[in-house]
């Protein structure tokens, strides 16, 4: 173990800037982003577990979806998917804006993202009323509602995060090129919800 000190020392110094009191930054933005990423790892594991369950049910069921399940419409969820994916890029503009101290830009792009997220949710609800099957009809319909519903819950939560950022951005100087942890965290979360949807859409509708 001898000799580990010097290298790690250098690494830590580089990380915190020489001479600062590294290790004592209670709310160092770096740490907070790391925490968010850890949180998203945990979230991914819930979805991974549910996806694995879905794929297992599917592989042990002779015909999938089971006989008598109404045909799935692809148009609406397809459009919805495009909206959700684009919203990630829109949101990214918002963070680029705040990095240039452009609060108006942040508000515009985040507002647009929120709108697109809301359209996605309304679309999903509309779909629910027009699938022609119920939650407990068979194993396919159950997994369909639980997976999309659980994802929808995440979209809703992401929407609330975006609204919170918009609310806080009303206060002058709350976000700036120096301090934009909130928007950054919201964006990470939103991208995550987006990626999960792409996997979900693929295994549920396409594959």
């Amino acid at each position: 173990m001898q000799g580990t000190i010097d290298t790690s020392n250098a690494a830590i110094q580089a990380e915190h800037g020489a001479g600062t009191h590294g290790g004592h930054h209670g709310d160092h933005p770096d740490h907070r982003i790391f925490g968010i990423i850890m949180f998203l790892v945990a979230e991914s594991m819930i979805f991974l577990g549910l996806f694995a369950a879905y794929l297992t049910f599917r592989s042990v069921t002779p015909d999938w979806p089971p006989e008598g399940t109404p045909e799935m419409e692809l148009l609406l969820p397809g459009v919805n998917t495009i909206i959700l994916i684009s919203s990630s890029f829109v949101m990214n503009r918002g963070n680029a804006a705040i990095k240039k101290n452009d609060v108006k830009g942040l508000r515009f792009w985040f507002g647009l993202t929120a709108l697109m997220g809301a359209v996605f949710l309304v679309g999903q609800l509309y779909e629910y009323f027009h699938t022609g099957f119920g939650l407990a009809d068979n194993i396919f319909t159950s997994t369909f509602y639980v997976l999309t519903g659980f994802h929808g819950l995440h979209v809703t939560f992401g929407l609330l995060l975006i609204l919170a950022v918009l609310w806080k951005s009303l206060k002058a100087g709350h976000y700036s090129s120096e301090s934009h942890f909130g928007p950054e965290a919201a964006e990470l979360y939103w991208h995550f919800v987006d990626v999960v949807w792409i996997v979900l859409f693929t295994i549920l509708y396409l594959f």
Partner: protein
Amino acid sequence: MAQVTEPETDNLGETLAVEAGGHTPWREYFSFSTDHKVIGIQYLVCTFIFYLIGGALATAVRTELATPDSDFVSRELYNGLFTIHATVMIFLWIVPAGTGAFGNYLIPLMIGARDMAFPRLNAIAFWLIPPGGILLLSSFFVGAAGAGWTSYPPLSTTGEKAGEFIWILSVLILGTSSILGGINFLTTILKMRMPGMGLNDMPLFCWAMLAASALILISTPVLAGALILLAFDLIAGTAFFNPMGGGDPVVYQHMFWFYSHPAVYIMILPIFGMISDILPVHARKPIFGYQAIAYSSMAISFLGLIVWAHHMFTSGTPGWLRMFFMVATMIIAVPTGIKVFSWLATVWGGKIRLNSAMLFGLGFVSMFVIGGLSGIMIASVPFDIHVHDTYFIVAHLHYVLFGGSVFGLYAGIYHWFPKMTGRMMNEFLGKLHFVLTFIGFNLCFLPMHYLGLQGMPRRVAEYDPKFATVNLICTVGSYILAVSTFPLIINAVWSWIGGAKASGNPWDALTMEWQTASPPPVENFIGEPVRLTGPYDYGMGDRNSGIPMPESQANTPMLSGGPTVS
């Protein structure tokens, strides 16, 4: 081990000046505090209370089993008793006490940080525990869940629905608390170490918590997924786990054990870490094989993730897959064995102080080895099929969970009590506690190996009269165990109020938490914390010159103030 980092004497003076500790007003312990030390003690006391409740339930279970056909409780109540007993012990005592209590209290102190990375998140994680626990116990009022702590369908979806639903909700709440804690530990350990402290300079407890937190993060969410699906089956008429509706009960088992096998490592890894820190202090020797112990924690954590189906050898798992899980399971014995041999080599030839902390530490090693050996036995498929769902399993799991985790937590309590409260514990009561626990534990659980081999099934309220005598012995052992907690409670309460004052470093230990006052002041260290030696450099020499010095002096680090209790 690491050498002297910053031998500046003015800093040293500052560290010495911290003798005045920070006494926390008692009200603070009932409030939403964000101080990791307060939260750690909140966790410890709260989970200990649940442990007593879980113990009371266990005593009721054993009372029913004292004779082959007693009518102490009804059959439904019996099912509720052992289900809630196990759930309380796992989700409200071992998991949150090992990670939440000791992790919170020790990690920032050990790495020279002022607090955890996310103090408020930390408080939220703790405050989910009491409501989660009370909710779980409240299920007795509606007919408690009775499908065992594993809650397998179809048993769990056909029994007491209200009780089962409450069980699911409370486990979800406790799981959330655990995940929030895990995020906090990972961030704190990886991002908040004091300047100059590399991963390889951390105390081994921090390594163990790193491995345990990674497991929490990866496995607990999958349990949440399983419970969500189970809840739908229970109340919404779906059939995820019901073959009649096209579902598959084995999917639940896979998801459940993907969490619950790693969970045993979530429970035991923090204990491994604590033992690795306690043994060298009281044997006055450097830890043997620091890196071997550190990396074996990571290896255990990884292997722990890929062996879950050894709980399902009898669930129709295909033969080739059973072989894979059997071999993978046995491979875990390697990193675990590395740890055990490192501990033995550490105490070997040491100047051992046989105080209460050390007694429980050595008790841990010996009892855990018995549990580990029966673990290897049941890892082999043919033997497991033979003893599946018999008392052999109950014996095995209690040797690891009680002989392992509880002995380790006890050792931790005796070792860190002076740091937490600024008071020494009474050694006589501590030793009495150890003797009663050791006798009661072995009397209660050793005969269960025999019962299992003879074929007594687990989770039954009535049994063949030929098992009567042995069961009576087990029940007597459980009563001794129940009694054994009294010396500990009396000792803790009495010492906290009126015990002898503890110095900053009563054990002459070298890890960072002993370099500040007992109890530590609000932000842990006054001024910048300074590392004087590596965490285990006992007898390694003068920390200022780096020149080796005689054993006798080396064992007395400069900072020691108070008496050495031996």
